[in-house]
């Protein structure tokens, strides 16, 4: 279970970082969302992964740590609000600046090859 879990968190983080490094605001926002998912799962795992463990004492044979669950809840709320803000800001930037590049201007393309490969999107 731990290996699978760690792999999922790692994959989400890697995808999130890759997308956050892209040049268009849409993929950056998606990247930030993936990063916040990864972070929520990661925080949840910081209290150790346990099966059949209730967060309330005396409900089950072994109990699980309730604090990471509270932290994840806080992180979800904050992450959600921040993503909403980032989406609105990206739309505002699209309207104000006339393009959806994070720098506010599309970098000049020097030759056709870079266009075909789609490199500097």
């Amino acid at each position, binding site marked *: 279970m731990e290996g699978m879990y760690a792999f999922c968190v790692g994959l989400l983080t890697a995808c999130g970082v890759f997308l956050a490094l892209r040049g268009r605001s849409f993929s950056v926002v998606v990247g*930030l969302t993936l990063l916040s998912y990864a972070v929520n799962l990661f925080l949840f795992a*910081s209290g150790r992964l346990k099966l059949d463990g209730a967060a309330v004492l005396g409900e089950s044979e072994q109990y699980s740590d309730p604090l990471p669950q509270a932290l994840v809840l*806080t992180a979800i709320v*904050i992450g959600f609000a*921040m*993503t909403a803000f980032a989406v609105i*800001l990206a739309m505002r930037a699209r309207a104000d600046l006339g393009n959806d590049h994070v720098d506010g201007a599309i970098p000049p393309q020097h030759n056709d090859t870079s266009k075909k490969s789609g490199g500097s999107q």
Partner: protein
Amino acid sequence: MQHLSIFPILIPLLFGAIMLLPPISRDLNSQRICSIIGTLFLLISSAVLLYQISSDGVQVYALGGWQPPFGIALVADRVSSLLVLLTSFLAFSVMLYAIAGKDKGGAYFHPLFMFQIMGINGAFLTGDIFNLFVFFEILLIASYALLIHAGGKQKTQAAMHYVILNLIGSSLFLFGLGILYGTLGTLNMADMAIKVGQLENGTATLAKTGALLLLVVFGLKAAMLPMHFWLPRTYASASAPVAALFAIMTKVGIYSIFRVYTVIFGEHAGELENIATPWLWPLALLTISIGSIGVLASPSIKTLSANLVIVSSGSLLACAAINTEAATSAALYYMVHSTLASAGLFLLADVIARQRGKAEDRIVRSRPFIQPRLLGFAFAISALALVGMPPLSGFVGKIMILQATQSSVQTMWVWPLILIGSLGALITFSRAGTTLFWRHNGSISTDAEPAKFTEILSIGLLLFASVVLVIFGGYVSEFTQLAADHLHNIQSSAYNLLPGVTQ
């Protein structure tokens, strides 16, 4: 009064919430009155808190009655109460400036301003590292909205970078916290400081990863070298009162570095002893150099003050790298000075920009001012303070930093960089001053408006603080010395905050 230490968080929260509700939310004038009263209350309660802390010692406020390390605790010690007072004073002065008309640009300026102050004060006061994250988010989300206050292309462009960078920073913060909680099993900073010494081998390496991730986050807030590129554009494009309030935001990052890497990962951290120091040294020195280059290359006063913020961040990081009581004390003094002085310059740049027609605050030949004497004196005082010339507080602050260097190697690196940085600032300020005030042509611009009374009062207060910091320099440096001793002594900064735990 035992509840005094939560007042700096509650007052802005309450006033911000009241201003969101009708009838006050509909009327700008009553919002202005409300803001001034709110920040004045805040100023008084922070001053009383500081007085009480310095006479009675540290106050631990257990929220909801849950005793630390299990509940969230607010810790008001000398360091945090000094910075809370600094924030309140800055907020009051900047609000005086904003009510003269800068708050008209967009809705909700006053509530957002209050929430931002609440976040900053909370970050200074909290004793719980996850709570620190929460207050960081509060101050950030208010700052995102404040940054695009009054709109415009430049602001949207700057806000885009600022928001994305800080969102990534928040994710890293949570990753770091997750690792630290997983290894230490606690989030109370005092408890972490005690437990971190017991870590061994694998766990210690893991905790080190978490701690260094946090350094990246705090470095991003504090504009440490590779993460400083957002700062000049963001600060230069923000509207004047917002930029002036942002002057304290980098200091929140610096404060967190001091708190986390002196108390938790300080001298008593066993295998993780002083883990940030080898990273802080080169980055601090490079930050000072790149900031100084930026200062020399600044085309306008706002960019100049933004670059000066980077230089001051670098100097403060150098103090964190020296990592002694004397350096921390110097850093605290310099932090107060540089926040107030750079906020003053941001406001002054706005007044200058409004009186010069199209040239705005760019350092080029342009129309003369309506109030050349007033602005000239204010500019000269602010330049003296920021360059670090006697008799103002910049001089005292820089001397304290220079004296704090320990070995000859440290002296060899820190002295030339700080002194050359000051020389760079001196050159740019003299270039700017001569161009702005002596080389003008044409007549006075027709759309120029003279500075209003509250604006002059606000800038005057901020500049006068620099003089006060020198006149009462003995008391202030004595206080910062005690604060630094408190921070470096694990008995007072960790064991005393937890009931029933002894060394």
